[in-house]
């Protein structure tokens, strides 16, 4: 089956071009704040012109619209043919006091609701600002997985006779992707940072810039033979991690396999532990999460340096996971 996620090896030149383009666009946004602002402004222009609900409306715009739409006009329209118009005017005059009473009560209620929403929104912005660090360098703790650990992951993926398509989430420069490919596996990687993937892309690896959760949602059921959680996924909030585990269950084939190769929370230095979001998820916790999603999950020792164990899980609960490094 030929789809965007099943691209033959001969396409790597086009994959490289795509990665270069996406990285260049990201660099342009970072280097030219005017351009980034212009991009947001024109997208907002369309959101303003399109009907409500037609775009992923920014919340401020939605609040403005909610405010406008939540007001009921007591002056009901009376425009019509001459005779009917007079009747409508008469009805309006007769019940105006009541209509006015009801609409005033409703408008006060919706006004309070919108004010409450705005208040929550302002507080959310304060919280988001407090959590945000704009200097990406400060947060750059995403060290690449060691070649030895990557080889171990690749052996686990490729030990099946025909491993099928494998996806590496948060693939970084592509060390794991490279290892799997060298062992004959069909594999691609997803990474949110376009600059990080460039060394791997230059080597001809199929690495793509994309949000991991969004990409998983786009995949069809039973599309993957194996899924590797790597890189910085352990920093995600628990709810996001759980959603990804549930999605993993959906996109994996019945005999599919999940491998978790993430840094031990204990391996973080003082600075990283203080600055980096989340405290990280330890491997036994991954095992627990995977078991809760009906995987059979086991821990195996890894060569390190920052990854002491990897988690290997399979969907068939009766199947006992074994591999060369057990």
């Amino acid at each position, binding site marked *: *089956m*030929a*789809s*965007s996620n099943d*691209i*033959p090896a*001969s*396409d790597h*030149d*086009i994959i490289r*071009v*795509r990665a*270069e*383009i*996406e990285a*260049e*666009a990201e660099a*342009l*946004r970072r280097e030219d704040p005017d*351009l*980034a602002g*212009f*991009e947001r402004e*024109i*997208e907002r*222009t*369309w959101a303003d*012109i*399109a*009907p*409500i*609900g*037609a775009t992923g409306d920014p919340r401020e715009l939605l609040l403005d619209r909610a405010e406008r739409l939540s007001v009921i006009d007591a002056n009901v329209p009376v425009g019509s043919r001459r005779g009917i118009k007079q009747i409508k005017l008469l009805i309006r005059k007769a019940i105006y006091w009541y209509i006015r009473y009801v609409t005033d009560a409703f408008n006060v209620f919706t006004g309070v609701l919108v004010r409450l929403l705005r208040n929550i929104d302002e507080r959310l912005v304060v919280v988001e600002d407090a959590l945000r660090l704009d200097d990406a360098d400060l947060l750059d703790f995403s060290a690449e997985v060691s070649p030895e650990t990557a080889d171990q992951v690749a052996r686990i993926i490729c030990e099946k006779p025909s491993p099928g398509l494998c996806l590496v989430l948060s693939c970084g420069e592509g060390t794991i992707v490279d290892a799997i490919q060298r062992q004959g596996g069909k594999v691609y990687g997803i990474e949110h940072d376009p600059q990080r993937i460039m060394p791997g892309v230059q080597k001809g690896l199929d690495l*793509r*810039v*994309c949000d991991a959760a969004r990409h998983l949602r786009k995949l*069809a059921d039973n599309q993957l033979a194996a899924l590797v959680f790597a890189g910085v996924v352990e920093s995600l909030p628990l709810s996001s991690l759980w959603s990804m585990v549930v999605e993993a269950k959906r996109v994996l084939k019945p005999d599919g396999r999940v491998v978790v190769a993430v840094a031990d929370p204990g391996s973080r230095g003082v600075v990283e532990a203080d600055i980096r979001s989340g405290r990280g998820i330890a491997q036994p916790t991954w095992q627990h999460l995977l078991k809760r999603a009906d995987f059979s999950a086991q821990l195996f020792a890894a060569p390190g340096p920052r990854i002491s164990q990897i988690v290997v899980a399979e969907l068939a609960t009766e199947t006992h996971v074994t591999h060369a490094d057990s």
Partner: protein
Amino acid sequence: MPTLVDLLVCELREHDATSTHTLLLRDLLVKMGAEVRLVVERKIDHVSDHAYCHAQDIVLTDRWRSNADLTILQHSTGSELAERVIGNRLPIVLNYHNITPPELFEAWQPELVTGLVSGQRQLHYLAPLTLLGIADTHFNSRDMIEAGMTNVVVVPVLRNLKLIDPQLFPASGAQTEAADSATETLLFVGRLVPNKCFHDLILALSVLIRYRPKARLVLIGREVLVDYKSRLEALAERLGVRDRVLFAGEVSDQKLAAWYERADVFVCLSEHEGFCVPLVEAMAYGVPVVAYDAAAVAETVQDAGVVLNDKRPTTVATAVERVLSDQSLRDLLCDRGIRRANQLDVNVTSQRMRRALAGFVD
């Protein structure tokens, strides 16, 4: 006795991919020795004057009696024909062209949603009646399998690329709108509907003209939602690119050929495409393709175009700029595009269709 085949299609319309496919399928079935009746719900008058469609071949739904040896239903939206098939428990070959997700129309034209939802529902009811499912793409085949169909093959949309052959319709200066060689021309062809995201093309253009002040965007296609077009015009106006955007409307094959000849890059940012015939036409003309990876787009383009994961305006503008400025990339895309289009030409695809239907037509 030749096999009598009823070929059911919702409507026949000029410049419509499903209609063209149906007529080519009719020709193929005739070549295979079958006797074919075209059964349609709606007939657009001028189609019967089309070079390869004759009014006498067409039966309207209310006059149709289902007594054929084989019934082939073209399914891309809810239809009365599908209801008749379901009501009569008629065994069929189902040729599925995908149904646009209704949510993409909800905000724009809620009354269109009913037909689409009904089409999705009908697909499930049609599943137990389907002897063979034919999908345009693997992407489309997933819907069929999900609906419960087990015997599904993939045969791309039949499209005779010779119909817009540049040798048949040389631009030769006659198409003055297309003849302006001083500008970089971005082209997209498709019905003017929101899921094809013409608005994203205009946004990308407004970033691109920072680097290419003379660039223009040419949008070809039938107007389906008047409201959508007027909002697109308002968007172009607000962004100061109204004079750089040409809404060419529905055009003749000759004009379409001229635009493909003139285009520097074909840009498709659709949210949903079950196949996207204009991508194939652009590739046939050697026009480099930049597209957004949605639905079946990557499957249609394969390695013959730049298929992006992200369609934010800067990313698309960067991609277009790269294609415009990198001659070796243009050459690569041009060569691969022609090769890919040849794989999808009717000469090849009709062979696949013939094999798929061989067991049904003697």
